[in-house]
């Protein structure tokens, strides 16, 4: 009966698309660009009297983006394909030129302020990785010269291609002058500077030459039409003026000891920076006559090595900036512009939060810096105007953390509270009653809940960090590849706190990198949760350690070792002196098992109780994980044993391995989603049952064969038996691109079928849904509590169906709810940058083929006839109009409401939304007419009050007179 009622609920039209009013309320989206690879380039354009300024940034995420310098928002971005690597970026005027692809052969021109592509062209390229790429413009004709190693192409009205006669000569820079176009390249092997002068209009070579340089010269700088270099052995500055006949002689400057030359991207202004060995730095200018003169000297500084950058302001005046960190940990800046005083300022950049400055760009007196933790910031004098946390585009691991109850509810200690104390507390609490009553009345009468009380709005940043009524407000803890950890508010996407993982012993002088590997959410002693982050620290001396950070998700403070001050680096504990092989959370406990390179079991927290727990569980624990052998990665199952001769810890030993055909290698392991199981079987329309195969040890292995197929295996983790397997075709020469997710007895996988060449077949992406059952109708084996070694463990009936899906995907998962009663949707991130939800109803493998479902099946199971195509319904796009680019992973978390699941996707962009696969059956509809209900009830109550005495009198009269 309850099932039937539930069925009725499910029958009601499922809410398919999100309402427009919910956009930005239930979801948020962060558009990111990735961590900058080079200094941002600042461009100003006059348009209708206003100046628009953008920062053009190439990033490590293979994105070319322009940021608005006023507020740091993304003006436009261009996402390069993975196979189309961005090789080089040049900006001139309003044109951004990006070269990409193999051999940097594809050239694209973007308008700097709109991102519109004005040109896309394939040029001749050397075919190998280019050693030098440069682009120059001819200002009067807008023609563009592209240098690629030993080829120069002119793109414009007149087009030509010039190739060096000697293909072994590699040019790396171009200089354009009205009389000639010069290509310059340095060959350290032959200690020669190669020069070529070409007619810029016709492409005819004027002259090629080479000059002998000392073999210790490793780089050169172009300024005006001069080229300059430093001989590192002697510290002399050498330079030569470029003339069309290339016959100018090399001149040297021996007056000072030079250390390095820095190109500050002011070639047209003929400015560059030379650093002396005594720490002084000089701004140098190449004169028309070929001489080099010092126009300014920055005095020697204390602190770190300086960064130099140059730029032009709105009026076109050149600026040169020097930036360094002083001994007192301040960031010092000197800005030089010809004809004015040097502007010197200090600002506090928190090294414990942002690391060190990696690039700098200057726009007048404003500075744009990028840091080693991936932040982009705009500073003016001592003030930060805006900042972006681009490390969020590189999240490695992330987890949802439920918030604790509000303090006033949580602090009550009911057990040893005396009567008087309780009375005092309750009187104290009563002061909140008027506000509560008012809020209640408002919510009840108008149907509009006070915002922070019920539905958390995305724009509300002020609400305190405590659980909301429906559990929509949680904290997302995300650790990035740049060693930073973020706490994000799921309601708004706001960054609650930022920490940078410390280096431990490697911090002093050695240096290294911390890479987060695993994240777990454990209960702490109170009613809250802690986040345990396991990371691999690779020191620069090649020592690898496993470090564990235990963090309070609300503040980001470390819990062990305990810390008060969160403004320092986040320090963890070294749990394993060596790399980590695998880590597992023991279900039902708060214990994490870490496996080191000797396969020893280390329990965390390292207490006697936990050691006893491991000893108790050891005989029945099995740990399948991936190991790399000579023939490739394999999945191997492990048992635990204690051998006092070998180690005082339990050691994992191999028990089984997955047999694969020759050449087949394991690509990935897909872990099952551990969630509560609401029902042990699937009830069919005729009230019979298919019992689900609920073996809790199943997991999925994806393999890649040598030839033309990929494998999908469902294995038993204790015994290694193959419970289900499928061979999926792949195009030869391509990598398998199979994505799978497994929850309860339900496996869904997605692949590209490129083999359908014959008539009636099709090349397409396929989604396959598989449900494993214990047998036929009403057959049961009690698989969920059966031993892996029982003969009946292999009694499985798989129902499967395959569908054509319109998109390639990059990530797949299922929704998760608190009790698992709500049906599960599949959430996929497609290659066209959208997030889709596919209802389970469509992926039901019992959808009847070639017949109509019976009335019972229709009514009770909502079966619809099989259709090979999963229609591309835009209402199921939960990311609606957002572009959610390059999603790598999707994680879901239950809310307190059974109907609702939180979905967070990360990759380049971050996107969070709420989904209700069976519609929000546990909250009243927004349009529910509460006023009508109240009026009806009060009208009835009034009627009773009026009629009651009348009826009583009538009854009495009847008794007397009958």
């Amino acid at each position, binding site marked *: 009966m309850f099932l*039937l009622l539930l069925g009725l609920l499910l029958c009601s039209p499922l809410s398919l698309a999100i309402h427009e009013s919910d956009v930005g309320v239930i979801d948020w989206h962060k558009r990111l660009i990735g961590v900058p690879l080079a200094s941002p380039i600042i461009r100003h354009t006059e348009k209708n009297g206003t100046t628009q300024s953008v920062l053009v940034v190439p990033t490590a995420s293979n994105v070319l983006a322009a940021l608005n310098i006023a507020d740091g928002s993304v003006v436009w971005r261009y996402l390069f394909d993975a196979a189309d690597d961005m090789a080089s970026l040049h900006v001139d005027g309003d044109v951004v030129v990006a070269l990409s692809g193999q051999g940097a052969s594809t050239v694209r021109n973007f308008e700097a302020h709109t991102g519109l592509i004005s040109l896309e062209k394939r040029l001749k390229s050397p075919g190998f990785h280019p050693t030098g790429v440069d682009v120059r413009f001819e200002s009067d004709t807008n023609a563009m010269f592209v240098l690629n190693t030993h080829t120069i192409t002119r793109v414009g009205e007149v087009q030509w291609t010039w190739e060096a006669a000697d293909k072994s000569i590699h040019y790396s820079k171009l200089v354009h002058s009205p009389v000639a176009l010069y290509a310059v390249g340095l060959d350290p092997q032959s200690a020669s500077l190669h020069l070529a002068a070409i007619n810029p209009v016709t492409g005819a070579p004027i002259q090629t030459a080479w000059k002998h340089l000392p073999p210790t010269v490793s780089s050169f700088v172009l300024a005006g039409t001069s080229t300059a270099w430093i001989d590192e052995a002697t510290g002399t500055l050498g330079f030569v003026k470029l003339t069309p006949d290339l016959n100018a002689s090399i001149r040297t400057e021996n007056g000072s000891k030079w250390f390095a030359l820095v190109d500050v991207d002011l070639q047209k202004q003929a400015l560059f920076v030379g650093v002396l060995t005594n720490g002084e730095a000089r701004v140098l200018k190449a004169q028309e006559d070929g001489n080099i003169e010092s126009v300014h000297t920055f005095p020697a500084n204390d602190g770190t090595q300086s960064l130099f950058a140059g730029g032009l302001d709105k009026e076109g005046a050149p600026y040169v900036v020097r930036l360094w960190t002083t001994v007192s940990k301040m960031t010092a800046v000197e800005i030089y512009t010809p004809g004015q005083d040097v502007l010197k300022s200090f600002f506090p950049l928190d090294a414990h939060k942002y690391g060190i400055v990696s690039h700098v760009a200057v726009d007048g007196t404003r500075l744009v810096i990028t840091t080693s933790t991936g932040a982009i910031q705009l500073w003016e004098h001592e003030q930060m105007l805006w900042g972006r946390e681009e490390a969020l585009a590189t999240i490695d691991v992330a987890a949802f953390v439920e918030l604790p109850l509000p303090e006033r509810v949580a602090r009550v200690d009911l057990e040893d509270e005396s009567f008087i104390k309780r009375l005092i507390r309750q009187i104290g609490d009563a002061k909140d009653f008027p506000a509560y009553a008012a809020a209640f009345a408002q919510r009840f009468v108008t149907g509009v809940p006070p915002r922070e009380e019920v539905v958390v709005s995305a724009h509300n940043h002020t609400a305190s960090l405590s659980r909301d009524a429906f559990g929509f407000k949680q904290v997302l803890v995300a650790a990035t590849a740049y060693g930073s950890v973020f706490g994000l508010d799921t309601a708004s996407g706001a960054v609650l706190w930022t920490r940078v993982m410390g280096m431990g012993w490697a911090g002093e002088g050695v240096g290294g990198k911390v890479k987060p590997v695993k994240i777990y959410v454990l209960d702490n002693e109170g009613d809250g949760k802690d986040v345990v982050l396991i990371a691999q620290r690779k020191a620069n001396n090649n020592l690898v350690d496993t470090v564990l950070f235990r963090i309070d998700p609300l503040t980001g403070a470390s819990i062990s070792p305990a810390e008060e001050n969160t403004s320092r680096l986040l320090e963890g504990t070294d749990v394993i002196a060596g790399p980590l092989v695998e880590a597992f959370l023991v*279900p039902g406990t708060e214990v994490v098992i870490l496996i080191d390179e000797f396969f020893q079991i280390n329990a965390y927290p390292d207490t006697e109780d936990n050691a006893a727990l491991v000893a108790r569980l050891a005989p029945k*624990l*099995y*740990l399948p994980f991936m190991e790399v052998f000579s023939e490739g990665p394999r999945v191997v199952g492990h048992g635990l044993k204690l051998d006092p001769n070998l180690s005082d810890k339990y050691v994992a030993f191999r028990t089984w391995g997955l047999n694969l055909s020759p050449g087949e290698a394991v690509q990935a392991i897909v872990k*099952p989603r551990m969630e509560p199981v609401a029902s042990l079987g699937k009830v069919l329309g*005729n009230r019979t049952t298919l019992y689900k195969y609920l073996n809790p040890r199943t997991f999925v292995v994806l393999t890649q064969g040598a030839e033309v197929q990929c494998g999908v295996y469902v294995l038993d*983790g204790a015994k290694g038996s193959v419970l289900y397997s499928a061979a999926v075709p792949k195009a030869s020469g391509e990598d398998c691109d199979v994505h799978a997710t497994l929850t309860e007895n339900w496996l869904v996988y997605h692949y590209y079928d490129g083999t359908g060449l014959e008539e009636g077949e099709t090349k397409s992406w396929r989604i396959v849904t598989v449900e494993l059952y214990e047998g036929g109708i009403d057959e049961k084996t009690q698989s969920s509590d059966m*031993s892996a070694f029982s003969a009946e463990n292999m009694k499985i009936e798989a129902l499967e169906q395959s569908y054509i899906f319109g998109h390639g995907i990059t990530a797949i998962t299922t929704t998760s709810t608190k009790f698992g009663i709500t049906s599960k949707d599949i959430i996929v991130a497609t290659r066209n940058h959208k997030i889709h939800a596919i209802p389970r109803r469509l992926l039901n493998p019992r959808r009847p083929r070639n017949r109509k479902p019976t009335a019972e099946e229709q009514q009770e199971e909502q079966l619809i006839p099989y259709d090979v195509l999963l229609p591309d319904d835009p209402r199921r796009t939960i990311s609606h109009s957002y572009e959610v680019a390059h999603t790598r992973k999707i994680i879901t978390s239950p809310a307190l409401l059974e109907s609702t699941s939180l979905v967070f996707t990360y990759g380049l962009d971050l996107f969070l939304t709420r989904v209700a696969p069976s519609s929000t059956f546990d909250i009243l509809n927004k349009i529910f007419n509460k006023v009508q209900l109240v009026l009806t009830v009060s009208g009835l109550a009034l009627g009773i009050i009026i009629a009651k005495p009348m009826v009583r009198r009538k009854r009495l009269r009847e008794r007397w007179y009958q």
Partner: protein
Amino acid sequence: MSKTLEYSTLETASKWRNLPPPPGFSKTASVHFTSSTPTHTAPPPEAYNQLKEKRALEFATAPAKSLPMQAFMLYMSGGGVQIFSMGIVFMLLLTPFKNLAGMNDAFAQFAPSTATNPRAFTTLALQKLIYVACNIITLMVGLWKCRSMGLLPLGTGDWLAFETRGLAPEMALF
């Protein structure tokens, strides 16, 4: 007003036999009065008893007689689970039990004058058995309707929620 005949008022074994006389009413006078009138106005007790048995039989078969009517109502109410059909089904399911619970009381009025205890089950046993059978038929019709509406827990699916499983002997971690 009800038109049922109160046979029991004529009956010595009636439940009002032991009521005290109303004030100012002398029992002896009444006895005297009745004894003075000859008994020919009252029929013999056997005839009464036969009449009552016949009435009891009619009463016992009444539920069966109303069945066609109820079947028609069931047909009209349809197979869906709605307030109307549910009301009829509840009526069909509840009345047999209500009837059986009040059976002895209901048949007491038909008890023959010879019966020592008109509420005993043995009084009018045959009629009561018929009454029970007729009520069971009504109940069966109700159950049949329940089944056709899918409300009877007959399939394994209806008992699935009560099945439990223990923990597996082995554990695999991922």
